[in-house]
């Protein structure tokens, strides 16, 4: 099977520095390393920005799963993973998933977008209860 060459990859990390060194503190980074290696342009959304010295701690450096040349854009957006999780900072929003499924059934993606998306991330976060509510979402236990 031929490789899938992605134009763009959008991944979430816990923290990064401005050059694109990313820490994923979650228990799993899933397939994100494959995505950013396959993509021509990889965008990482992060909850917190750090100085490069942050990665001098070898325990932190062990949580970096690709090199900074795999990342072309860094977006600082606290709570930006909502409605999915950014473990260990916050869990996923199950009530919002249910509301999303209801709205999609009723009127497709536009119904959800009209109800929640807003004109920017601030408006979106306000419509789902605010950043503090996102940060208070409990982590999943399986």
């Amino acid at each position: 099977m031929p490789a899938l060459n992605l134009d763009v990859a959008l991944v979430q990390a816990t923290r990064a520095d401005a050059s694109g060194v990313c820490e994923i503190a979650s228990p799993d980074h899933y397939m994100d390393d494959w995505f950013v290696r396959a993509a021509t342009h990889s965008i990482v959304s992060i909850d917190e920005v750090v100085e490069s010295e942050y990665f001098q701690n070898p325990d932190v450096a062990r949580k970096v799963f690709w090199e900074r040349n795999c990342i072309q854009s860094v977006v600082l957006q606290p709570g930006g993973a909502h409605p999915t999780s950014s473990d260990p900072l916050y869990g996923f929003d199950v009530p919002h998933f249910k509301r999303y499924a209801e709205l999609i059934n009723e009127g497709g993606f536009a119904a959800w977008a009209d109800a929640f998306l807003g004109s920017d991330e601030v408006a979106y976060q306000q419509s789902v209860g605010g950043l503090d509510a996102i940060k208070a979402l409990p982590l999943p236990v399986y």
Partner: protein
Amino acid sequence: MTFSLAELMICAASRVFDEDGEVLATGIGLLPRLAASLAMSTTNPDLMMTDSQAFMLSKPNPVSGLTDHNAQASENWMGFSRIFDNVWSGARHALVGPSQIDRFGQTNISALGGTYGAPKIQLLGVRGFPGNSICHANSFFVPQHSRRVFVEGECDVVCSFSYLSTPDGCLLRGSAMSCAR
């Protein structure tokens, strides 16, 4: 001695892991998962199991009431990507509940009725079934015995291959082939 039907099925299903040796046991759904936990705790202590998130365990987790993954008996990190390294090695045995199973041993968890493009009911999709069925042992847990599950002809969508798919009519069991006819 009295026991419930569910307890009987858990005990019976756990026996599929008896002869497996040191492989990853994956029970999907409450009763299959309890069957795998029972086997690991009794007849086959060499079995391996994950916490359903990102770690391998030396002792099965409870199926409810867990409040903190840090309290579990973790052995090693086992992220999602690494599960495929295990699958491709063949050292795994999945116990899963198909929505349909046919006389050829093919199963379906993808969609029911209609056409492939517009099914009557859309289910999960084929998920890991195709790869599982060519790589490692699979057992099927079917609590509802009806013609809706045990279909005539073939499954509406074939998600896992069958003994008819191999020239000598054999099913994969672990990393070895064993004849099913």
